[in-house]
């Protein structure tokens, strides 16, 4: 669910188009946009406080008796619905391996690579202090 929540809507749709077709599903709730209140902690580790809201899209669907859920930041309702459908399909052991390989694995790999690239860029800006030897 975390991998799907972080996927770009267009990327997700493109991967799904190339994957084995999903069984039909029915909407249970949404897709709909709303807000979640983001919170921080005083001092980073103290009592919680409200930082401000963020938009969120959520959806629940039913597919062959299984219920799929999706929550994701932003207002991409289509991506929320596709994610909920995938969440339902992934609970089906016969569908799971093919969908994992066609959709989840490439998304997870792209997200891992993006994180690693950010970490490497940050590492390149880490200050290396050096001390000038005193002349005697």
């Amino acid at each position: 669910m975390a991998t799907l929540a972080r996927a770009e809507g267009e990327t997700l749709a493109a991967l799904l188009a190339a994957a084995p077709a999903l069984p039909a599903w029915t909407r249970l709730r949404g897709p709909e946009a709303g807000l979640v209140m983001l919170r921080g902690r005083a001092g980073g580790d103290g009592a919680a406080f409200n930082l401000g809201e963020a938009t969120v899209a959520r959806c629940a669907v039913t597919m062959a008796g299984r219920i799929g859920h999706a929550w994701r930041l932003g207002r991409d309702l289509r991506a929320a619905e596709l994610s909920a459908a995938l969440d339902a399909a992934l609970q089906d052991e016969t569908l799971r391996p093919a969908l994992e390989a066609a959709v989840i694995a490439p998304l997870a790999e792209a997200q891992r690579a993006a994180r690693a690239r950010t970490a490497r860029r940050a590492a390149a800006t880490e200050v290396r202090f050096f001390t000038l030897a005193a002349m005697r």
Partner: protein
Amino acid sequence: MYVAVKGGEAAIEAAHAWLAHERRGDPALPELTPEQIAGQLSLAVDRVMSEGSCHDRELAALAIRQARGDLIEAAFLLRAYRNTLPRFLAAEPLDTGAMRIRRRISATYKDLPGGQVLGPTFDYTHRLIDTAPRPAPAPPEREADGAAVPRVSAILAQEGLMAGEAPDPGGPVPDLTREPLPFPAPRALRLQALARGDEGFLLGLGYSTQRGYGNAHPFVGEIRVGDCAVAVTPPELGFEIEIGDVLVTECQMVNQFAGSATTPPQFTRGYGLAMGQAERKAMAMSLVDRALMARDLGEEVTAPAQDQEFVLLHSDNVEATGFVEHLKLPHHVDFQSELEKLRSIRARWEAERAAGDPARREAAE
């Protein structure tokens, strides 16, 4: 007193048509896309999300375009949009300790675990306008060791020299968007108000504490900028799920505290947290947060930045704009009554002056 006035519709329509034309600029040039604004004016987007108190890069970019780059107007638009959406629930507090760091600096320790990471900063740039910007190649990379980046405040806390944060009391988190602000305001509400407060107002207040209005001697313990996972626990699932990441900036501002009868001398910290890469905002917020602790710490409250009502009731730029700008709305009737009152006072004054004021004569004798 307000009186309904009819008329002006045609003038208003014409004014809005002209506004739309001015907003668009030269029609021979392509219109800015929200993607361009989100990508190339990303710090403006961060500020609008922060002060509009709603994280949504696309909406903030649209608001900036619609507002012709007026960021307070854009924050207003975002607040108005936010009011059309239901709030589903509150997220788990962001774990800034687990932030994926883009920038992390400390002014209190040179060498520290996790290092000094500059990230994409304006610091050390020459501030010379580049009239012919060169293409930006991909930034350099170096293998990251993936080591933990502990909080600087934890290093001082180990020695017992840093005041610990009060533990989370649990229970509902107070929310100033749902209930009026009480005074004295609890820290959670102060932080919420500061987080959505105007950067310029907080910057001025923070600066005032450095210049002697509040007796602050601050050090940047740590600034960190990076991505934090947002997690929620939807009731239909009953377990925690991650729903995406947000970029945030956190500032821990270290201050001395002389101690009191019950508390030993130690460092205290002001805290700043802002959506996006917003270092100035987070630093100013942390200075003002610390100044507002004066009352809790038993320090004398003498300066504007230490005065909760002064700070918290005037930091919201959407509210402030509303009250300042309402002055331009028609006050014709109000003003007529003021005018009549002043005319009668003036007539009396002229008459007394002509007659020679008996009260003044008596006083002179």
